[in-house]
């Protein structure tokens, strides 16, 4: 399966989705002008991955900041991951960033996937 690799920018996150090496990570800042357009390839990639997923997947969110339009798309990403067996979310937040911790907790209440919280 092809690797999805998006370089981060000041308003878009860095994204690596690599089935072979087991790397699934969204990190950095997310405030794109058009969040639906930006996350579309991610959602498409996950849909394909779901049909032939690894036995277990640790999907990493290591976001420094995301805007509200991105939060809706992050929920869409999580909903797409929800149907994949062996899925687990690693939600990273900066140790003094309560808002990012709380955001992760809220997402964990909205989908049926185990979340592990980690600081960096």
């Amino acid at each position, binding site marked *: 399966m092809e690797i999805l690799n998006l370089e981060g920018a*000041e*308003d878009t996150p860095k994204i690596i989705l690599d089935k072979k090496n087991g790397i699934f990570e969204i990190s950095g800042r997310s*405030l794109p*002008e*058009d*969040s*639906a357009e930006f996350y579309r390839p991610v959602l498409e990639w996950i849909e394909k991955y779901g049909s032939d997923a690894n036995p277990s997947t640790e999907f990493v969110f290591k976001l420094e*900041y995301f*805007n*509200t*339009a991105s*939060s*809706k*798309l992050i*929920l869409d990403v999580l909903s797409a991951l929800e149907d994949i067996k062996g899925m687990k979310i690693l939600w990273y937040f*900066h140790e*003094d*960033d*309560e*808002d990012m911790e709380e955001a992760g907790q*809220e997402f964990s*209440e*909205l989908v049926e996937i185990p979340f592990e919280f980690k600081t960096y």
Partner: protein
Amino acid sequence: MNFIYDLHRTMMSQKLILVYQGDFTQESTKSILSMAERNLDSSGEESNIKRKVFNVMVEALQNIVKHSDELVDGQMRSHAAIFLIGKEANRYCIMSGNPIQKKNVESLNKKLEHINSLDKDGLKDLYKEIIKNTTISDKGGAGLGFVDMARKSGEKLEFSFPEMSADYCFFCLKVNVPREAE
């Protein structure tokens, strides 16, 4: 030329550290954010306060980009809006102003009053309610901006709609971010 000095004095007395007026796009948003960030960094502001200010700024700026109504006045068409940041001893004030068609004032006013009627838990419930049920609008918004600003600031949103013309009001918004940790 005295207006230059007058404007300068107004900015000083209102403790404004950044004022931008003009067209608002994703590009100008990024420039304003990076200027404001540099300012916050150089003043050595605490990182959790910085994050909250940044958060509110993004939502306020993207609201203008997405929702400011084009002002049509005879032959004149303009998107001119204004964005300001004030820094007081105990808080940052993120302020914006943009034209809005009069017919849209009532629904916006209602939405903001509803947000202001809610406490912390009420805002959290509203946020989850909207995010579960919303789809991204053709303008690219999730309908969560004001709720998020209220949550991040921890204070009531201040707003008013002074009249511009027969068809337009100027939507003024002020969001305060306390500088003392809770």
